[in-house]
């Protein structure tokens, strides 16, 4: 009896020791995150309320909310009063919804093909991964070249096939720029979405399909009746994951259309003010707004998929 008590005592202290040990082991990572994430983010928030410029980092005064909104002689200035900011918010939303919709559709098709067994299917998977592995700068440049209005392959083909009469300026005509950027982004990230959906497909139980086969149910009906409901968790995760990435999009837009207004997203707007206009204060204000928007979406998402995430985080 005494012996048992003693051993339980020991177990408790072991648990306690484990707790201290856990924090000790976590220390390097926590310090790292403090330096590279928390500290810079706090400084961004801090600068948002100053008039700091990029060239004179330490020379600034507090201006309160002036970067966000300020009334000067009856006119409103600041981020909230800037139509271009709201335009870039709108562009970001259009980009996010458009690209995520296409990526999920295309990603599901690719995932279904990847899930099928055929000769060379592992090579096919590897090939599909390539666009995702290549730097966005490179894929955006290749597409910019193929979409060149005069010498580009796309216009050449479309004219040859008599689909269009005159070359289209895909990256200059503001009717097409957003669509072009969305399509190029989808080209790059659909394979990635396909990987996420494939992971969902691989976890599906086989017996449903066998039962459906025995009952002679049409494959399309099987897809909508069995596969789609079962991979819904994987689809949800892919949508949320991609949505968050699309909301902060920068590379593809900046490389293909620069600071053009027709495709300017929140990230492009913030960077232009920060770096090109050297307006650290105003740019930080835009970054802060961007962060708040994305943070709220993250919180919303986590709340929505609380059950799934908590199961994992527990």
């Amino acid at each position, binding site marked *: 009896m005494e012996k048992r008590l003693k051993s339980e005592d020991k177990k408790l202290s072991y648990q306690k020791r484990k707790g201290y040990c856990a924090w000790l082991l*976590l220390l390097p990572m926590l310090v790292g995150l403090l330096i590279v994430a928390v500290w810079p983010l706090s400084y961004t928030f801090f600068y948002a309320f100053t008039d700091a410029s990029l060239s004179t980092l330490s020379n600034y005064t507090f201006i309160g909310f002036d970067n966000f909104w300020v009334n000067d002689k009856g006119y409103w200035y600041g981020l909230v009063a800037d139509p271009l900011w709201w335009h870039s918010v709108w562009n970001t939303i259009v980009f996010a919804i458009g690209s995520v919709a296409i990526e999920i559709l295309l990603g599901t098709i690719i995932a279904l093909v990847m899930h099928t067994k055929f000769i060379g299917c592992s090579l096919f998977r590897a090939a599909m991964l390539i666009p995702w592995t290549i730097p966005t700068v490179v894929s955006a440049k*290749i597409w910019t070249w193929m979409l060149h209005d005069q010498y580009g392959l796309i216009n050449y083909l479309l004219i040859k096939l008599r689909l269009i009469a005159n070359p289209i300026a895909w990256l200059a005509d503001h009717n097409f720029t957003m669509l072009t950027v969305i399509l190029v982004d989808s080209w790059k990230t659909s394979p990635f979405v396909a990987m996420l959906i494939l992971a969902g497909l691989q976890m599906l139980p086989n017996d449903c399909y066998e039962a459906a086969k025995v009952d002679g149910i049409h494959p399309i009906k099987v897809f909508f009746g069995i596969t789609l409901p079962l991979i819904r968790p994987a689809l949800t*995760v892919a949508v949320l994951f991609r949505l968050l990435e699309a909301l902060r999009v920068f590379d593809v837009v900046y490389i293909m259309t620069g600071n053009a207004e027709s495709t300017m997203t929140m990230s492009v707007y913030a*960077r232009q003010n920060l770096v090109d206009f050297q307006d650290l204060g105003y740019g930080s204000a835009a970054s802060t707004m961007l962060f708040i928007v994305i943070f709220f979406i993250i919180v919303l998402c986590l709340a929505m998929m609380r059950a799934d995430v908590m199961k994992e985080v527990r």
Partner: protein
Amino acid sequence: MTTYNNSLTIKIGLFAIVSMLLLIFLFPFYYALITSFKSGSSIFEVSFFPKELSLDNYIAIFDEQPFGRNFLNSLTISIAAGVISLLFGMIAAMPLGRFRFNGQRLILLTVLIVSMFPQVAVLSGMFRLIRALELFNNPMGLVLCYLIFTLPFTVWVLTSFIRNLPVEVEEAAIMDGANPWVLLTKIFFPMMWPAIITTGLLVFVVAWNEFLFAMTFTLSSHQRTIPVAIALINGGSQFEVPWGRIMAASVTVSVPMIALVLIFQRQIVSGLTAGAVKG
């Protein structure tokens, strides 16, 4: 007979879809490749097969600008970012994946949220940090910046990997009186090799491809990374963009990545699904 017909149509349909997907996703690289071998004015004529094999563009990118140096910069930065985050990540992933302690959930959520930070949101603060440490225009500064997304990613993937490891070995070691440090170095590290390779690869890819920080925090052409160098290849004016050179540079960067994907396809897929499905 009907089943035979059915399976034949399915096979043909599958073949059609596979070829179409391969065409859509791989043709741009092929087109970049044939463009990169063109010289002079032939670049402005659309062609589907290489007519000449001129290496002018390849020679030019290494000759006219420090492309070799940029390549080396990218390589060093990506490897350094990978090694540092793996080191910190492995140490942190063990308690997160195995132990039960107060605040564990909070830490995992923090890691998750940090990994979703928009880069622009930390740009001005990061600029301040880089300036304070006097790492502006220094590749080492980029290594530091990249930890903001490589570190949370590594922790997350390794934690989910450790969760899926069998506990029996660990229990046996504890019974034998192993302390957590021995557990970490003698039990976990050896079992974690596959996960380490996968995570390392993915971190390498992400760091290799990063553009915004690299563009903002470097100034001289010698300190640039490859993506920035390619983005900044410019002719005299906007009408003389040297497309041949841009395509040659693009091919040069893509080849090692394509090789990596072909060799480590399985590891990359498993890492992506582990990191993202649970994220």
